[in-house]
């Protein structure tokens, strides 16, 4: 009777110890990446190549998703606002929803799935095929040469993609609200212009996406670098990147929103 209970407790305890150890190890890795980021800035071309890898190659999914999210917002927003006779506020609703929340969060989730998983798979496979070891024995630091540029490439790409997502989303809302449904063009844009504040709304949205970028980049690079050098190991690490990033983005979003947009 007591034995299964104790075994359960011991299992939970082991999980907690392992989790804490891994969190410490990941934090140490993250600090090491920051410490060895010098090369990423002295040879910025390496980072630019990774901006292409993470950012440019994610453009299609970001633009298409942004457009559809904006169109859905336009449709749903109009349906609700028209009941209260304030359909002209559609521009404000679409813009604030996108700039404050949906833009940073949805684009970060998409970025984690598209670019985060690709970063993990690339670094994990480089490890499995001994490319990182080859670099190490050539006296080239793989953290500085491979991980750093991937990390900064993702951090730079994320706010740009989120901004693009929001811009395309606003256009999607415009297409549905103004072009299709017939909301007044002038009211749509002028109300949006009056309600959206650059510092409070746009800048905070960009800060949010930058924080998500750091989180996704740190998780993706760590999972790749720490992946067991087998096919199963790399596939598991890729899955963990997507799941952990999604949870981190949602948790961070709650905390950031609480600090940025409440009590005003």
């Amino acid at each position, binding site marked *: 009777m007591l034995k299964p209970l104790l075994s359960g407790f011991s299992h939970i305890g082991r999980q907690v110890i392992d989790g804490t150890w891994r969190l410490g190890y990941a934090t140490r890795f993250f600090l090491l990446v920051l410490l060895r980021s010098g090369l990423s800035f002295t040879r910025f071309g390496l980072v630019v190549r990774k901006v292409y890898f993470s950012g440019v190659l994610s453009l299609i999914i970001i633009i298409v998703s942004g457009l559809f999210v904006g169109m859905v917002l336009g449709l749903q927003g109009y349906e609700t606002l028209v009941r209260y006779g304030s359909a002209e506020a559609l521009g404000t609703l679409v813009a604030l929803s996108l700039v404050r929340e949906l833009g940073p969060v949805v684009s970060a989730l998409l970025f984690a799935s598209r670019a985060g998983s690709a970063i993990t798979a690339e670094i994990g496979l480089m490890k499995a*095929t001994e490319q990182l070891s080859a670099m190490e024995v050539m006296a080239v630091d793989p953290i500085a040469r491979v991980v750093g540029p991937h990390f900064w490439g993702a951090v730079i790409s994320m706010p740009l993609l989120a901004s693009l997502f929001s811009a395309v989303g606003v256009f999607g809302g415009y297409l549905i609200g103004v072009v299709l449904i017939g909301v007044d063009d002038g009211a749509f844009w002028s109300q949006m212009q009056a309600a959206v504040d650059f510092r409070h709304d746009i800048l905070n949205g960009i800060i949010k996406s930058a924080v998500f970028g750091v989180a996704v980049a740190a998780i993706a690079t760590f999972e790749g670098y720490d992946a067991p050098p087998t096919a199963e190991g790399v596939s598991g690490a890729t899955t963990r990147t997507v799941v952990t990033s999604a949870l981190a983005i949602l948790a961070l979003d709650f905390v950031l929103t609480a600090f940025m947009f409440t009590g005003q």
Partner: protein
Amino acid sequence: MPGDHLVDIRNLEFAYGARKILTGINMTMERGQVVAIMGGSGCGKTTLLKLISGMLRPTSGEVLVNGEAVHRMDTDGLARHRRKLGVLFQFGALFTDLSVFDNVAFPLREHTDLPEELIRDLVLLKLHSVGLRGAHALMPHQLSGGMARRVALARAIALDPGLVLFDEPFTGLDPISLTVTGNLIRRLTDTLGLTSVVVTHDVAESLKIVDRVFFVADGRIAASGTPDEVRHTTDDFVHQFIYGEEDGPMRFHFPGGSMQADFGLGRGRA
């Protein structure tokens, strides 16, 4: 004196946690020689290469390369040591996002400030020495296993190292590629004045090209000598290994529980 022995390993012990891998290893490798380290799978051959390159540190004992203690080197010391070292990994470990040319140019671009025209000439020279100058524009996925290893060899000698370590260079090669790779190791060692350490299972090919062989078994040096000496050895393990005999000190079955216990024999199982 460092002039005689390039690599000197003394009383080396190495363990992964509680699992002992190498015990009481003593070996010296002279300059300009091709030295083979042979032994069964998992006997610690690759671990020896990692200890020489400084990727692992011994539990006790000394690893001296050119008179310098590799196991006591700090990060900068290891970087200096590795710039004078070439390593060829089992399957080449070429960077898959770089062309053959860029793979060979990689160490030159990372460690020198040479102008791009000179790097181009050096890379083509190194590729010419392994017979692949014409393949400089190919990507790694377009190469056969043997070609990939030759490109990796060109990359390993790009900075003109004094010591080159080869980890299983003959694995998975067809007979022609195998002979080409073996001859290449010998020829480059002689013409460039290298010292080569080859970890391998391939008895026939290695004995043709090496100057000295070390046999590792159960984490120890079981025997060593010139190819002629080991061919005529009376040591049971070496004899079994060289002639690929089934019976001998090296067991086919991995140690485990008794047959009776594993199959439930003698307990009246139906």
